[in-house]
């Protein structure tokens, strides 16, 4: 302990057993202690873990929530997405700028506040939303900004930094900290109060092989959108040789417009933990890992409390539910702001305390995953489905939905509609059915399955939501007739520039070039040749990129091009060629320095 009673860096490193695979936790704790990770902290962590400083820096510099430079005591992060912008996020940002006397991205002179944009924080149904010291505020208006700033000032300028992960009760003092339930319509999966461990007890009455068989018979497929058969994943993991076998729950819900995992973790955590425990039993694992995105740090305390209850009740630990020899526990790994970590191999890297760059496959995680051991990585919703299947039987589950897509899907609906929120709907309904349900009679288009999915025009609203037609992770952003399709595509292109990990060249550079190409379109300066070039570039990035991020990053541009060619054509410049940079813009600085008036249309 240091003199002020706070843990020293040595204490923090010691608390994690000087284990370099726990570097995420160590850096989070060090930043909580010091406010930022300075050179001395990098050196101390490196020497405490017997690492090189360049290795520690490599990891720390990767995550958006880690700071190498001092920032304000209070961190205000405003969610910037096309949906938040349509709901007034820019006006809220301006109100914060006025209340604080700084611009977005800056820190106040007294060191009390830093104001920033951040990527989607999983509250698309309650935008504009913000994270303040990790706590969450929703449905913000410009009038809230000065009140929030005043409340933060009152909460104390001196003393230790605000706790992180934040305590749940901390939020109470701030305006707009009451988050309403996102669940608008529940179905077979979420209806009725969940009974803790009902599914788990049913599973433990069977052999592990029989559990896998039951999941396979239910035809459950991964709910993240890729749709890999869950039973097969568990079977592959179980039969892969390894010292340990792991189940990892992917709660890095970063796809803009998705918020179902937040709902499940805050209102149905036992169904999630039951599912992880069932999976652990089925695939022969003793440890489960829940990777919780940094944006959901405010769920930390509640989730830990549920885990403790479960340990007290014998649902975690040794001989679970009296099943002799079945020992299993769950660790929550908090992330630190990186969309790429939702990609399963990046998630594994992050779980091991490294930068979240994807791995090449093969080997697949089912063979070599966490710490090189066989690992099944499942979406939060998938595990909830597995719990219910054990509770109610595979026949019940397979009786819902379509032939290839059994069960229900949690659709996260936001944007221009009357009733945004989570809707549990059986697979097989059409986009039109969903739009009727949520009250969006005049949708101009739907961004389906997030920016990595596709833009769907009304001509395709009759298509079915199912793996065999429109596959989705759940994100459904609705845009009304007043919205600018191209401007939105540009915002999504910008999102991928922020979130590309940088490891592979086509995605690192391609996302930037695609965004610049789209800027030219939106500015009305793109020619027909530019469009062809942008399309070709998009296809190249898809073919050459290493992981799903690069392979889908061009989708917002490509799918709007294909759904709305007339909007692109209407924005084209008539000239056969326009340079990327307008002459006026290129000369503006020179003209200014020369202190003369621009001539002939210069600047």
């Amino acid at each position, binding site marked *: 302990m240091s003199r002020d009673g706070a843990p020293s860096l040595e204490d923090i490193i010691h608390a994690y057993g000087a284990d370099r695979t726990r570097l995420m936790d160590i850096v989070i704790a060090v930043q909580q202690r010091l406010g930022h990770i300075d050179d001395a902290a990098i050196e101390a962590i490196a020497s405490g873990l017997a690492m090189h400083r*360049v*290795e520690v820096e*490599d990891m720390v510099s990767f995550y958006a929530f880690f700071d190498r430079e001092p920032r304000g005591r209070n961190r205000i992060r405003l969610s910037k997405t096309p949906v938040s912008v349509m709901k007034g996020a820019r006006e809220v940002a301006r109100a914060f700028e006025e209340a604080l006397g700084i611009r977005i991205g800056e820190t106040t002179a007294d060191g009390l506040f830093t104001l920033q944009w951040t990527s989607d924080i999983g509250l698309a149904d309650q935008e504009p939303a913000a994270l303040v010291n990790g706590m969450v505020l929703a449905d913000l208006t410009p009038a809230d900004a000065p009140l929030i700033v005043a409340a933060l000032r009152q909460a104390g300028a001196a003393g230790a930094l605000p706790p992180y992960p934040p305590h749940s009760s901390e939020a109470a003092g701030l305006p707009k900290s009451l988050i309403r339930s996102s669940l608008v319509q529940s179905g077979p999966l979420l209806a009725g109060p969940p009974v803790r461990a009902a599914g788990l007890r049913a599973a433990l009455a069977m052999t592990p092989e029989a559990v896998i068989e039951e999941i396979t018979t239910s035809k459950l497929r991964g709910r993240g959108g890729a749709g890999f058969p869950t039973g097969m994943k568990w079977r592959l993991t179980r039969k892969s040789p390894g010292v340990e076998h792991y189940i990892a729950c992917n709660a890095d819900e970063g796809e803009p417009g998705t918020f179902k995992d937040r709902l499940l973790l805050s209102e149905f955590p036992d169904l999630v933990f039951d599912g992880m425990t069932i999976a652990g039993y089925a695939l022969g694992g003793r440890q489960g890992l829940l990777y919780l995105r940094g944006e959901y740090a405010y769920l930390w305390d509640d989730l830990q409390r549920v885990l403790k209850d479960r340990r007290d009740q014998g649902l975690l630990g040794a001989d679970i539910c009296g099943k002799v020899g079945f020992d299993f526990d769950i660790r929550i790994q908090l992330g630190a702001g990186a969309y790429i970590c939702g990609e399963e191999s990046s998630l594994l890297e992050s779980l091991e305390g490294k930068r979240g760059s994807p791995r090449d496959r093969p080997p697949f995680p089912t063979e070599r995953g966490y710490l090189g051991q066989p690992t099944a990585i499942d979406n939060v919703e998938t595990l909830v489905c597995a719990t219910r299947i054990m509770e109610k039987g595979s026949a019940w589950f397979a009786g819902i939905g379509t032939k290839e897509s059994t069960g229900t899907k949690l659709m996260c609906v936001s944007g221009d509609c009357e009733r945004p929120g989570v809707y549990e709907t059986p697979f097989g309904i059409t986009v039109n059915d969903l739009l009727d349900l949520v009250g969006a009679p005049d949708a101009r288009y739907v961004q389906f399955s997030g920016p990595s999915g596709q833009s769907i025009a009304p001509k395709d609203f009759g298509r079915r939501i199912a793996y065999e037609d429109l596959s989705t992770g759940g994100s459904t952003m609705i845009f009304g007739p007043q919205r600018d399709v191209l401007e939105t595509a540009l915002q999504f292109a910008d999102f991928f520039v922020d979130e590309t990990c*940088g490891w592979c*060249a086509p995605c*690192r*550079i*391609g996302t930037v070039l695609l965004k610049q190409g789209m800027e030219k379109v939106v500015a009305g300066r793109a020619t027909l040749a530019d469009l062809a070039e942008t399309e070709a570039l998009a296809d*190249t990035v898809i073919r050459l990129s290493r992981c799903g991020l690069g392979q889908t990053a061009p989708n917002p541009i490509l799918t709007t091009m294909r759904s709305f060619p007339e909007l692109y054509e209407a924005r084209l410049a008539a000239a056969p060629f326009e340079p990327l940079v307008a002459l006026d813009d290129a000369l503006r600085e020179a003209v200014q320095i020369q202190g003369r008036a621009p001539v002939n249309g210069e600047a």
Partner: protein
Amino acid sequence: MAADVFSLVIDGIEIEASEGQSVLEACDAAGIYIPRLCHHPDLAASGTCRICTCKINGRSVAACVTPAARGMVIENDTPLLTADRRALIEMLFVEGNHPCPYCVASGDCELQALGYRLGMVAPTQPYQWPARKIDATHPDVYLDRDRCILCSRCIEASRMEDGKTVFGFEGRGIAMRLNIDAAGGLGETQMAAIDKAASVCPVACIVLKRDSYRVPNGERRFDKAPIGSDIEAKRAGHKS
């Protein structure tokens, strides 16, 4: 045929491969050149550049990190893949600052050589003109990040061959940079001119001082023959 030797087909040509080889290694051994940039024969493959992307059994994957397997059908030298690779080389050119005409590595640079081999005339994408730092703190080794293509060869070589971990990455996305294991730059590290890490750079990011014009322009590796010729010579040798 031994148990661990099998055949696969690349661009219609049947070649032999053995268990444990990557597709790229198997093709190298058979004298078939797959363009590549980040791959170095002495180092573990990192798969950062994706130039060696082929269509293997219908899927686009990087040949350097894909294990060769029995009966694989591979497309390599196709107009579409060449166009993709050329576009990617262009991307790398506009991402950094690459003044070939006065660069010390001209004629010995794998990026430049691939540009020639793949038929790049001039980049059609906009130059990004990034601001990057040079590092001249070391007495024998000069670091010019303008040329860096983030291939990770030096990182791998320093860690695995030299046992020093002098290099690493910093940041993410387009802001990613090559980083040094000392706040004060390369001069504060254990880096030595004889290190493997000093000799594996495919461009002119890591340059030995006082050594640059030992081989004059016009007489360098790729002045004499296109990149990949050495590999292709093996196949010509088999035939004759």
